[in-house]
């Protein structure tokens, strides 16, 4: 197990290294001087442009040799220096991101975990109950094919705009300052529900279908046939099949992280929910390069950490890795 996690850590370190290098390399690969590109894309007054240019020049250190630029880049990164935001000048990028992260987690963790659990349960039921299969399966395919932002838009329009049941923007009402009280928590949950629901539903469809198909394959497997030949009750066989089908679903969670991140970004944009996704939209609209770069690094780091947590869970759940029999 130690070896397995060690291997994974190695890959994640390489991935991080690779990602940071891309991050550093891309502005320098693009035709022309990156500072000019950035400044010229913003329609600014001449004096502001000059200030910005000198800031960028200092940040990019284009006058230094390349290897030194690269090392300095890493140095700044490890000190947590991600630059200063243009959109909310002069706030540091790191602070903006750290302010956004709690909202991301508040939205994503429940949506991912609950949809995974519910999807697996319902998918497993669909594999044995025919009417459920006939209704859940088409629904699941529709949900998993739905773009996150579209479901978010539909929910916001129908339940928010038309029915007026939920607010459609922000993490809490205007005029309320975040503080610890029932009123605030209720307000927070009320704003949280629609973005959560749209993320939950899209993911739920995917997990339910995945589980249903996986179980059907497991029920065809040799060990299921053997148990059936020995007169084991269907309940026992299904229990085994469910447990074995869970393992690929855990791996599937890791594989889906990229899509989930994109979905969260889109959902936050629809609901103007103040997480990283909303920052990205503002950064794109305001040509805030350092903020984008910071969001990039934050997403990569988040995905790597999540991957590693999933690996640990997988190693704990799968006896084949626990007993150290295979490295995969």
């Amino acid at each position, binding site marked *: 197990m130690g070896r397995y996690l060690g291997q994974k850590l190695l890959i994640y370190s390489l991935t991080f290294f690779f990602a940071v290098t891309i991050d550093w390399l891309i502005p320098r690969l693009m035709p022309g001087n990156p500072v000019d590109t950035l400044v010229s894309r913003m329609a600014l007054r001449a004096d502001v442009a000059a200030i910005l240019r000198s800031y960028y020049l200092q940040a990019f250190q284009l006058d230094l040799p390349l290897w030194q630029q690269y090392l300095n880049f890493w140095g700044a990164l490890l000190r947590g220096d991600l630059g200063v935001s243009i959109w909310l000048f002069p706030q540091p990028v790191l602070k903006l991101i750290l302010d956004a992260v709690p909202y991301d987690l508040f939205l994503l963790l429940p949506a991912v975990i609950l949809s995974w659990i519910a999807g697996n349960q319902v998918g497993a039921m669909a594999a044995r109950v025919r009417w459920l299969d006939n209704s859940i399966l088409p629904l699941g395919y529709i949900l998993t094919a739905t773009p996150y932002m579209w479901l978010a838009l539909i929910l916001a329009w129908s339940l928010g705009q038309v029915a007026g049941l939920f607010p459609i923007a922000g993490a809490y009402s205007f005029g309320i300052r975040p503080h610890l009280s029932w009123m605030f928590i209720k307000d927070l949950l009320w704003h949280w529900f629609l973005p959560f629901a749209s993320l939950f539903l899209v993911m739920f469809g995917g997990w339910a279908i995945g589980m249903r198909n996986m179980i059907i394959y497991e029920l065809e497997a040799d060990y299921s*046939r053997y148990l*059936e030949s020995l*007169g084991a009750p269907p309940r026992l066989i299904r229990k085994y099949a469910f*447990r074995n089908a869970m393992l690929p679903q855990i791996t599937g969670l890791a594989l889906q992280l990229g899509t989930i991140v994109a979905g969260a970004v889109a959902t936050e944009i629809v609901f103007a929910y103040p997480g990283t996704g909303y920052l990205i939209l503002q950064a794109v609209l305001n040509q805030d390069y350092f903020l984008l770069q910071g969001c990039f690094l934050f997403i990569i780091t988040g995905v790597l950490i999540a991957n590693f947590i999933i690996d640990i869970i997988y190693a704990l759940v799968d006896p084949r890795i626990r007993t150290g029999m295979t490295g995969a």
Partner: protein
Amino acid sequence: MGLRVENLRVYYRTLRGYVRALEGVTFSVADGEIMGLAGESGCGKTTLGHSLIYLKPPMNYIEGQVFLDGQEVPIWDMKRMNEFRFRRISVIPQYAMNALNPTRKIGQLIADLLAAHGVDFKEILPELKRRLDLVQLSHEVLNMYPIELSGGMRQRAVMVISTLLNPSLLIADEITSALDVSTQKAVCEMIVEFRNRGFVRSTIFITHDISILYQIADTIAVMYAGQMAEKAPTEAILRSPRHPYTRMLIASLPQVGVRYREERLRGIPGAPPRLLDPPPGCRFQGRCPVAFERCVETPPFVEVEPGHFVACWREI
């Protein structure tokens, strides 16, 4: 009392109609008898083995009766069969090496299976351990996952599990095909030992390898294209086969006791009939050197000598 099968007909449902995999199969296996069941691949021997314990679509029960110790076995009823499975009829499958749930410890798996049949694991544990000793598996195996065992060890574990409740009938389905010669011998000896110790009463040992049957079988039944061709004590069938197909089969053995491969059987000219729309009468007539007019009728499976049955008009 043993097993008696009468006029069993089992077809496979396919797109283009029924494949007549078992056409009126009749035979019996006595108490304590190890019956070898041989024939080319596709002759219906595996279908026969499955029918007796696990008859599931696309297999379709058409007609016929099966009696075990005088009691009728409802092979057509997947649910009612559960009373028979494991306790009275058991199987060592062809895929024995992959037959154990990879994510369950072997001991837990056995406990689950026993609980499903209302048997207490603790009570049976001493006997289970004795049997593990017999097949030379350490008791530690109970605490291991299948993946921690070698293929051979997994197969032995399955052999112990399948026979744990002392079934009246054991079906061993091609259990030696994937093994090397020395392991084959050991597995065969275990099957005989299981019988000798009374773990199982009657055994049907399905294989395409007649030379293995010579070592362990009391009787040998030869199937051809979904029908029984001949059944007789091992000595008799090897020394004086009566059915033309059996004769050609025995003749194609290089030497008794030496292993041959399935491909050798194709040394017999011609090919078995398609079971989708087989010709009426004896199914071997197309390849038979001694066929005559009468062979368009189906020959009965009759006892020509005590314990020697054959389905051929020439022998009646």
